C-alpha cells in the first residue's frame, strides 16, 4: 500500500466518521444528562430529509440546514416529552422515533415531491461543497491543468498530498464536527452548564436539591442532541450526497451509539472511536476480496470486518463501560 493510498483511506475515514461523530456527540449530551437515546438514527434520517427537501425547494443549503435541525429538534422534543415529562421508557421512545422517522420521511417525501420518497437532486448552491484550502490541489487547478484532480495529487510531494487530500476539501460541516469535540469537552468540564449536565446524569436528586431544575437541564441536553443530530443528517443529505434517499442513514445512528459506549461517554474518546469506525469502513470499502497467497478472503468477511473488529476490540481492550448512573431512569420523586 503506497503513501497516497493511505492518505486517501484516511481522507475517506474523515468523511465517513463525520456523521458518526456528530451523532455520537449528540448522544453524549443526551446520555450524559441521563436520557438514553437510541433514536439518533431516526433524528438523523428526519433531518436528512428535511434539509434536502428545503434545500431543494429554496435553493439554499443554509435554509436546508436549519430545516434539518428543526426537524430533528421536533423529534428530540418528542423524546423529551416521553422520557422527561411523562417519565416513559427511554428505549421505547427511541425505538418509536426511529420507526416514525423511517415512515414519515418517505411518506412526506412522496406526497411532497412524488419522486418515490426521494427529494430532487440538489444543485450546487443547495449543497455544502468542499472547502478548498489555499494552495491545496482542487478542481480549479484541475481545470487549469486539464487533468483530473487525482492525477495532480498523485504527482505532488507527500506533504502537499496530505494537505490537499486529507486536510483540505472537506465540507464546512466536517470541520465543524471536529471542532465540536474540544468544544464539547470544554462545555462539559469547564462550564457551569457542563457541571450541572453531568450531575443530572449521575444523580438528579442532587441537582434538584441544589435548587436547579432537573427538567430544564434535561430538556436542554436533549435539545443539543437534536441540533447535533440535525447537523449530522444535513451533512449526509446535503454535503456527502445531493439529496435524500429513503433509509439513507443506513444504521449509522447505531454505530454512533456503539462508538459512544466504546468511548465511555467522553468527548475525545468519542472522536477516536468514530474515527476508528470510519477507518474500518474505509478499509473495507477499498479492499474487498483480499487474496492472501491463494486463499481469497471473501468480500463478506471484509464487509463484516468493522463489526468483527469492534467486537474484538471491545472484548480485549476496553474494560467495562459504566454509563451515567441515572441514565435511562426517569427522575421520579413521588412514586
Amino acid at each position: 500500500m503506497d503513501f497516497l493510498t493511505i492518505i486517501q483511506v484516511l481522507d475517506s475515514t474523515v468523511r465517513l466518521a463525520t456523521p458518526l461523530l456528530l451523532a455520537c456527540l449528540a448522544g453524549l449530551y443526551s446520555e450524559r444528562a441521563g436520557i438514553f437515546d437510541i433514536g439518533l438514527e431516526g433524528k438523523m434520517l428526519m433531518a436528512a430529509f428535511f434539509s434536502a427537501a428545503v434545500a431543494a425547494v429554496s435553493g439554499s443549503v443554509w435554509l436546508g440546514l436549519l430545516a434539518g435541525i428543526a426537524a430533528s429538534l421536533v423529534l428530540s422534543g418528542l423524546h423529551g416529552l416521553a422520557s422527561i415529562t411523562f417519565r416513559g421508557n427511554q428505549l421505547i421512545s427511541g425505538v418509536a422515533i426511529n420507526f416514525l422517522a423511517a415512515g414519515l420521511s418517505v411518506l412526506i417525501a412522496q406526497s411532497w415531491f412524488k419522486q418515490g420518497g426521494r427529494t430532487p437532486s440538489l444543485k450546487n448552491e443547495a449543497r455544502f461543497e468542499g472547502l478548498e484550502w489555499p494552495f491545496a490541489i482542487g478542481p480549479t487547478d484541475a481545470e487549469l491543468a486539464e487533468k483530473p484532480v487525482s492525477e495532480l495529487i498523485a504527482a505532488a510531494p507527500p506533504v502537499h498530498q496530505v494537505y490537499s487530500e486529507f486536510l483540505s476539501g472537506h465540507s464546512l460541516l466536517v470541520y465543524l464536527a471536529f471542532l465540536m469535540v474540544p468544544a464539547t469537552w470544554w462545555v462539559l468540564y469547564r462550564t457551569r452548564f457542563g457541571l450541572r449536565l453531568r450531575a443530572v446524569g449521575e444523580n438528579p436528586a442532587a441537582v434538584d436539591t441544589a435548587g436547579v431544575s432537573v427538567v430544564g437541564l434535561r430538556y436542554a441536553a436533549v435539545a443539543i442532541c437534536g441540533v447535533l443530530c440535525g447537523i449530522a443528517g444535513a451533512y449526509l443529505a446535503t454535503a456527502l450526497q445531493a439529496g435524500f434517499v429513503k433509509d439513507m442513514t443506513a444504521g449509522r445512528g447505531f454505530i454512533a451509539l456503539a462508538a459512544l459506549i466504546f468511548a465511555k461517554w467522553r468527548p475525545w474518546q468519542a472522536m477516536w472511536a468514530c474515527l476508528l469506525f470510519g477507518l474500518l469502513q474505509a478499509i473495507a470499502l477499498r479492499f474487498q476480496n483480499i487474496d492472501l497467497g491463494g486463499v481469497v478472503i471473501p468480500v463478506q468477511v471484509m464487509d463484516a470486518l468493522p463489526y468483527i473488529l469492534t467486537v474484538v476490540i471491545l472484548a480485549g481492550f476496553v474494560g467495562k463501560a459504566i454509563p451515567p448512573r441515572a441514565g435511562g431512569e426517569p427522575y421520579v420523586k413521588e412514586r
Partner: protein
Amino acid sequence: MDKMPKWADVVLIPVISLILAAILSALVILAIGEDPVEAVNLMVTGALGSTYGWGYTLYYATNFMFTGLAVAVAFHARMFNIGGEGQAMLGGLGVAMVCLYVPWPHWSLALLAACAGAMIFGAAWAAIPAYLQAKRGSHIVITTIMFNFIAAAVLNYMLVNVMRPEGSMDPASARFPEAVHLPTLHELLAPIGISFSKAAPANVSLLVAVLACFIVWALIWRTKLGYEIRAYGHSETGALYAGISPVKITMIAMLISGALAGLMATNNVMGEAERLVLNSTEGAGFIGIAVALMGRSHPFGVFLAAILFGFLYQGGAELALWTSIPRELIVVIQALVILFTGALDNMVRMPLEKLFLALRKGKA
C-alpha cells in the same frame, strides 16, 4: 396499596393509548389525502375479517412472539438483546440445514429437529456476546448490534457461495423437500371440521410459539431458574448476596433468548418460505423489541402485542394492496402505536391514577 385497580392498569391504559395512536394515524392518513375510515375498514376486514386475513395476521404474530419472547427473557435478566435479528437469521440457517441435509420421514420429526437446530444456532449466535458481557464486560448492546451485521454477512456468504443450488440466480437455498412441509392452519383444522383459508401461511409453528409463551411464563415465574433470572435482573448485588452467579445467569438468559429468536425460523423459513432466503427475518428481531416492551416483558403481554403487530402488518399489506397509500404509512402507524402504548404510557396513566384516587376518596 396500588393507585389503580389492576384491570385499569392492564386493560384500560393500553386501550386508551391505542385509541390515541389510532386517532393520530387517522390524521396522518387524512393529511396524505386518503380516507381514514375506509383505511381502517380495509385493515380490519383485511386482517381480521376472514380466516385468510387471520392466517396472515397469525403468521406475522408468530414471528413476533418468538422475537418478543427473546427480548423479554433477556430483559428479565436486565440485558438488552438487540441481536434478535441476527439470532433469527442464524436460526434460519440451522433450520435449513436440518431440513435440507437430513431425509425426514414425517414433518413432526422434522419440526422437532428443526426446533433444535434453530435453537442451537440462535443460541450459539447469542453465546459470544453473552460470554463477552459476562466475562469481559463488553456491552451487550453493542456486541449484539455488531453480531446482527456479522450474521447478515454469514448468511449472505452461505447463500451465495454454499447453499445456493447450482445454476440458480436467487441467493437462496434449495426448496425443502415435501416431507418437511409444515401443516398450515388449513390442514390442521380441516380434520376437525373447521374450514380455514388454504392460502394463508399460518402454520403449526403458531402452536410452537404459543407453547413457547407458556413455557417462558412458567420459566420466569414458576421455576427456580426464572427466580434467579429475575432476581439478578432486579439487583446484581442482591444476586451476589444470594449466591446467584452473574456469569451463569447472563449466559443462560442470553442462550435462552437467542434460542427463542432462532425458533422464529420454524415459522418463516420452514413454515412459510420452505427455503432459506436472504433477509428472511425482515426486521422481526427489531419488532420483537417493541413487542416485548409493549407486552411489559410478560409472555401474555408479548402474545397480545405480537398479535397487535401481526394485525398491523397484515392490515397494512391489505391497505397497500387496495389503495395507493404508500407502504411507509404502516411504519408510521407502528411507530405511533409503540410511542403511545410504550413511551407515552404515563400520559394516560397519570390522569387516570388521579381519577381513580378521587373516585376512591369519594367513596371512602
